[in-house]
C-alpha cells in the first residue's frame, strides 16, 4: 500500500491529468451546457500537468512494479503532449463554437488522448505501451469523426479506425513474439537479453512488427497512406493534434523501444528504419509539391518530417536521440502554430484551404501572415528558426552513424520542401488578392500562437535551452 501511494506521488503528472479527465467527464455528465466548464477544467489540467512534468524533469524513477518510468524522458515528452493538448484545446474552442457544435466530450477526449500519449512515453513495459497506444488511438478515432454530419469526417474516421486496428494486430503479434523469445515484456529484461536474442529470427520478426506498428503511427512510408485523408477530413485542431502530439507520442514509443530497450546501432533493424526514413522523406516531399489543399500539403509534409526524425532513430546515437527530442519539441510548436492560423482562415464548409485562398493575405492581416511565415520558414528548416537545428541534429547524427547517404537525401529533399512552404509565403506576400479571416481569432488562441512563434525563434537562436533539458536523462 505504501509503495502504491509512493508510486502515485511519483506519477503526479499522469495521475493528475487522469483525475482532471475524470472530473471533466463528471462535470459534462452533470447537466446540459457544461462545455465551457469542461473546457476550462481541461485547460487547467493540462497546464498543471505541464508544470508538474517540468518539475520532475531531473528525477527519473520507475513506478508501479517497473511498469512506467516517471520523470526525465517521460517528463520531457509529458511537456510536449500537454503543450500540444493545451494548444489543441484552445484552437478547438473557437473552431467548435464557429461550427456551433461545441461539446464537452470533445475536450475530455483530448485529455484522455494526452493520457494515452503520456503512458506511451513513460512505458517501460510493452503492455503499458500497447495500452497507451490504444487509449490514444481510440480517442483519436472518435475525435477525427466528431463532426458527425460531415461526410469526409466520417470517412476519415472509419479509415483511420480500420487501418489502425489492422496495425494494432501487428503490434500485438510483435509483442507476443518478443515475449516469446525473451520471456518478458519488460524493457529492462528485453534490453538485458537483447545481445543474445537480437539475431533470433522470431525476435527479429517481432521487432519488425513493432517497426511496422510504430511507422504507421508516425505516418512513415509505406504505412502513411491514411495520413493525408485523415488529416484532411478531421477537424483542423485535431489535425494539429495528430500531427504534433500523436506524432511525438509515437516517436516517444519508437525511441523508447528501439533506442532504450534495443540496441540497434549498425544492425539490420537500423537499415530497415533508414529505408523507411528515406522513402518518407522522398515521397512526403515530392507529393506535397503537387497538393493544392493546405491540410493535405501539411499531411505530406508531416510524413516527410517523420522521415527526418526516423533518420535520427536509424542513427541510434546520442545526437540522434537528442535531435529527435529537439525536433519533436520544436515541430510541435511550429505545426500547432501553422494549423492554428489555417483554422482561422478556413471557412465552415471546408473551403479557403487552398494556396490560392491566401493571395494577398499579408496586406489584410500582416501580423497573421508574419506568424504563418515564421512557422513555414521553420518547417522548411531555414535558420534562425528552430526547425533548422532539428534537422541539423538528426542529419548530423546520421553522418556520425555512417549513414551519410541518408543525410544527403534528407538535405536534398529539404530543398524540395522549401518550394511548397515558400509557395504559400509567396502567395501571401506577392500575389494580389483579398484573403483575410472571417472573424478575428479568439484572443487566447491568438496569444498562444504568437507565443509559439516567439518560441520557434527563441529555440532557433538558443537551441541549448532544449538540449540542456535532455542532457540529464539521455545516456546512450
Amino acid at each position, binding site marked *: 500500500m505504501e509503495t502504491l501511494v509512493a508510486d502515485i506521488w511519483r506519477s503526479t503528472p499522469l495521475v493528475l491529468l487522469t483525475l482532471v479527465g475524470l472530473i471533466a467527464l463528471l462535470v459534462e455528465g452533470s447537466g446540459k451546457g457544461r462545455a465551457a466548464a469542461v473546457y476550462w477544467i481541461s485547460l487547467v489540467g493540462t497546464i498543471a500537468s505541464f508544470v508538474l512534468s517540468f518539475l520532475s524533469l531531473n528525477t527519473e524513477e520507475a513506478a508501479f512494479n517497473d511498469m512506467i518510468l516517471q520523470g526525465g524522458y517521460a517528463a520531457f515528452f509529458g511537456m510536449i503532449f500537454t503543450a500540444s493538448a493545451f494548444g489543441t484545446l484552445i484552437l478547438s474552442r473557437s473552431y467548435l463554437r464557429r461550427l456551433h457544435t461545441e461539446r464537452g466530450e470533445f475536450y475530455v477526449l483530448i485529455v484522455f488522448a494526452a493520457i494515452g500519449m503520456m503512458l506511451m512515453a513513460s512505458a517501460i513495459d510493452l503492455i503499458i505501451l500497447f495500452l497507451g497506444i490504444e487509449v490514444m488511438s481510440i480517442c483519436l478515432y472518435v475525435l477525427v469523426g466528431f463532426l458527425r454530419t460531415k461526410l469526409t469526417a466520417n470517412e476519415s474516421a472509419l479509415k483511420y479506425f480500420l487501418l489502425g486496428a489492422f496495425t494494432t494486430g501487428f503490434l500485438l503479434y510483435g509483442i507476443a513474439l518478443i515475449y516469446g523469445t525473451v520471456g518478458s515484456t519488460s524493457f529492462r529484461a528485453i534490453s538485458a537479453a537483447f545481445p543474445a536474442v537480437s539475431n533470433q529470427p522470431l525476435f527479429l520478426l517481432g521487432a519488425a512488427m513493432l517497426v511496422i506498428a510504430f511507422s504507421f503511427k508516425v505516418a512513415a512510408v509505406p504505412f502513411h*497512406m491514411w495520413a493525408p485523408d485523415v488529416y484532411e477530413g478531421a477537424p483542423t485542431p485535431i489535425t494539429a493534434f495528430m500531427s504534433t502530439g500523436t506524432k511525438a507520442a509515437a516517436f516517444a514509443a519508437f525511441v523508447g523501444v528501439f533506442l532504450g530497450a534495443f540496441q540497434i546501432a549498425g544492425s539490420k533493424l537500423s537499415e530497415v528504419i533508414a*529505408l523507411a526514413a528515406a522513402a518518407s522523406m522522398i515521397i512526403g516531399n515530392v507529393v506535397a509539391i503537387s497538393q493544392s489543399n493546405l491540410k493535405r500539403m501539411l499531411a505530406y509534409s508531416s510524413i516527410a518530417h517523420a522521415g527526418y526524425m526516423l533518420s535520427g532513430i536509424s542513427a541510434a546515437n546520442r*545526437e540522434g536521440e537528442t535531435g529527435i527530442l529537439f525536433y519533436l519539441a520544436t515541430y510541435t510548436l511550429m505545426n500547432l502554430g501553422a494549423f492554428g492560423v489555417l483554422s482561422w482562415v478556413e471557412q465552415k464548409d471546408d473551403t479557403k484551404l487552398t494556396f490560392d485562398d491566401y493571395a494577398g493575405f499579408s496586406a489584410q492581416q500582416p501580423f497573421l501572415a508574419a506568424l504563418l511565415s515564421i512557422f513555414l520558414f521553420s518547417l522548411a528548416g531555414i535558420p534562425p528558426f528552430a526547425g533548422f537545428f532539428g534537422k541539423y541534429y538528426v542529419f548530423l547524427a546520421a553522418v*556520425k552513424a555512417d549513414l551519410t547517404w541518408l543525410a544527403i537525401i534528407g538535405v536534398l529533399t529539404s530543398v524540395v520542401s522549401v518550394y511548397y512552404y515558400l509557395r504559400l509565403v509567396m502567395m501571401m506576400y506577392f500575389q494580389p488578392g483579398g484573403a483575410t479571416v472571417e472573424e478575428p481569432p479568439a484572443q487566447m488562441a491568438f496569444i498562444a500562437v504568437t507565443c509559439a512563434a516567439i518560441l520557434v525563434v527563441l529555440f532557433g537562436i538558443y*537551441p*541549448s535551452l532544449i*538540449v*540542456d533539458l535532455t542532457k540529464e536523462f539521455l545516456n546512450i
Partner: protein
Amino acid sequence: MFSLAPAIVFFPLLGFLFLGLLGPRLKNERLVGIVGSGTVGLSFLVATAIFIEMLGLPPEQRKEIIQLFAWIGTFTGTSASMNVSVAYQIDQLSIVMTLIVTGVGFLIHVYSIGYMHGDPGFWRFFTYLNLFIFAMLNLVLADNFLLMFLGWEGVGLCSYLLIGFWYDRKFETGGYAPGTAYTGDAAKKAFIVNRIGDFGFLLGMFLIYVQFESLNFDTVFGRAAVLNVGGEVMMWMTLLLFIGATGKSAQIPLFVWLPDAMAGPTPVSALIHAATMVTAGVYMVARCSILFALAPATLQIVAVIGALTAIMAATIGLVQNDIKKVLAYSTISQLGYMFLAMGVAAFGAGIFHVMTHAFFKALLFLGSGAVIHAMHEEQDIQKMGGLKKYMPTTYKTFLIGAIAIAGIPPFAGFFSKDEILWKAFSSEYGSVLLWALAVLGAGITAFYMFRLTILTFEGEERFDHRHVHPHEAPQSMTIPLIILAGLSIVGGFVGIPESLLGGNALEHWLEPIFAPALSKLRVVPHHVEITEYVLMVLSVGIALAGIYGARRVYLRRQELSALWQQKYARIYKILWNKYYVDEAYDALFVRPAVRLSNSLLWKGLDVAVIDRMVNGTATAVAWCAFWIRRVQTGVAQMYATVLVGGIVVILFWLMIK
C-alpha cells in the same frame, strides 16, 4: 564585472527590438532618440567599468571568456566535432574595440538626433543603428570565428540598409557612369562587393576548420602557436581571410564600394564607413595575428596592399569636389595605413591608428554633416567657402580634425601615424620603399585635407545667398563634435613612443595579445635610435609642407589650381576618374558577367539546362504524383494492401536478404 560583458551586447539588441517593434507607433522623436542612444550609452558605461576593472588586474588575468550558451553542439564533445558557443571574449584587444564602437557610436547616435530631426524614417534610422551596434559588438567580442562571421554579415546588412536609407533619393555617381543613380544602387554595390570579400572570409574559415578542427579562437590560436612558420595552407588561409578584410575595409582591389556608400546619411558614413565597420578587417587581422605570423608571405602582401591603397586613395582625394567623397577616399587611405601596420607586424600600432582614426574621422564626417545640413544638402565644396563665419564651432572642430589627420604633433593622428611610418621603416618586414610611399601619402593627405577645409570654410563665399542661409548646427550636433575634437587632440597620448619619453601605454597594453605572433616572427623590441627622430621630423615636415601648399594654392594663389589642372590635364583626368578602376571592373567583370549571363548562363545554362531540369523535375514529380495518386485512391483496402507490401519488403530485408 567581466561577467557583465553580455550586457554590452544586449543593450543595443533591446534598443533594436524596442524600436523595431514599437517604432511605427512611437510618435515621439525624443523618446526614440533617447532609447536609441541611451542603450548604446549604457553599453559604453558597462564597457568602461570593465575596462577600469581590467586596468587594476595583472595582464594574465585580463582575459576572460563568458559562455552564454552552446549554439551548435554535437553533445559528445569529441575532438573532431564542431562545437560553437555563443560566447564573448573580453580581453585587452576586444575591450579597446568595444570602447571605440560604443563610445564613438554613442556620440554619433546623439548627433543623429539632431541630424535626422524631422525625417519620416527617424525610428527606422535608430533601429538600424542599434542593430548595427549589436552586430558590430558581436563581431569584436566573439570568441569564435562563426559568431564573428555572424557579426561580420550583420554589419554588412546594416551597412546595406543604411546606405539605401533614403531609398527614394538620388546621388551623384561622380566620374564613373556620370550622372545620378538611386541610393539603393550604391547599397547594392556595397553589398555585392562585400559579398566577394565575405566569400573569402568564409573559405578561410572552412580552411581553418579543416586545419585546426575548431573555430574557437583559443583552440585555433593555441594549435597554431605550435606550428612552424611557412606552409602553403597557412598562406592560403590568411590570404583568404585577408580578401575578406579587403572587402569590409575597402582595400585594393575591393575598395570601390566605399565612395558610393557616401550616399547614405552622414552619421552613417561617420559611424559605419569611417569609425567602426570598415576597421573590422583590421581588427580581424589583428585578432588572427598568430595565423598571419605563420605566413610571412601574406604579411608582405598585406603591407604592399596597404601602402598602395594609402597612396592611391590619397591621390584620388586630391581632386574630388564632393566633401564626403574626399573624406571617403581619405578613409580608404587611412585604412591602408592600418593594413600597412599589420603587414609590417606592427599590430599594436595598427590598432592604435584604428582608435585615433575613429576619433578624427568621425569628427570630420560629423563636421561635414553639419556643413551639408547648413548648406541644404549641398555637398560640392566648390559651392561653399567662407563658412567659418557662420558656423564657428563646426569650423574649429573640423580644423582640429584636419590637423589630427595631417599628423601634426601633438594631435592624435601624429602619434599613431608616426608609429606606423617608423615601423614600416624599421621592422624586419618593412622597407624604405614602403616607408617612402607612406610618407608621400601623408604629405598628400595633409594637402587635400586642408584643400577641403579651406574650400569649405575659408576664402570667399561661393554659394547662392538667396537660397542658402548657413547656420550653426544645434547643440545635439555640436556637443559630439566638441567631444570628438577633444579626443582628436588628446587621444594620441595613450601611445606616445619611448623616443618622445612616453610610455607607449597602448602598445604595452596590447602586448599579451600579439606576443605569440611577434615571437613567431622574431620581432625584437628596438631601442630608440637617432633615425627615428630624423624620420619623425621628416614626416612632420612633409605634412607641414602639404598644409602650406594647400593654403598657398587655395587661399593665396587660387589661379594655380586651374593652371595645374590644365598643365597636368592627363594626370588630373586619371585622378578625377579614380584611376578608372570602376570602369575597369565594369569592363573586366561586370560586362563580361552580364554578357556571359545573357548568352551562356541564361540562354545556354538557364534555359537549356536548368529550366529543362526544373521542368523535368516538375514532370517527374507530376509523374510520380500521378502514380502515387493512383494508389492514394481513398479506398481503405488499397491502403491496407500497400501496408502489407511494406511489411513484405521489410521482412525480406531483415530476414532473407
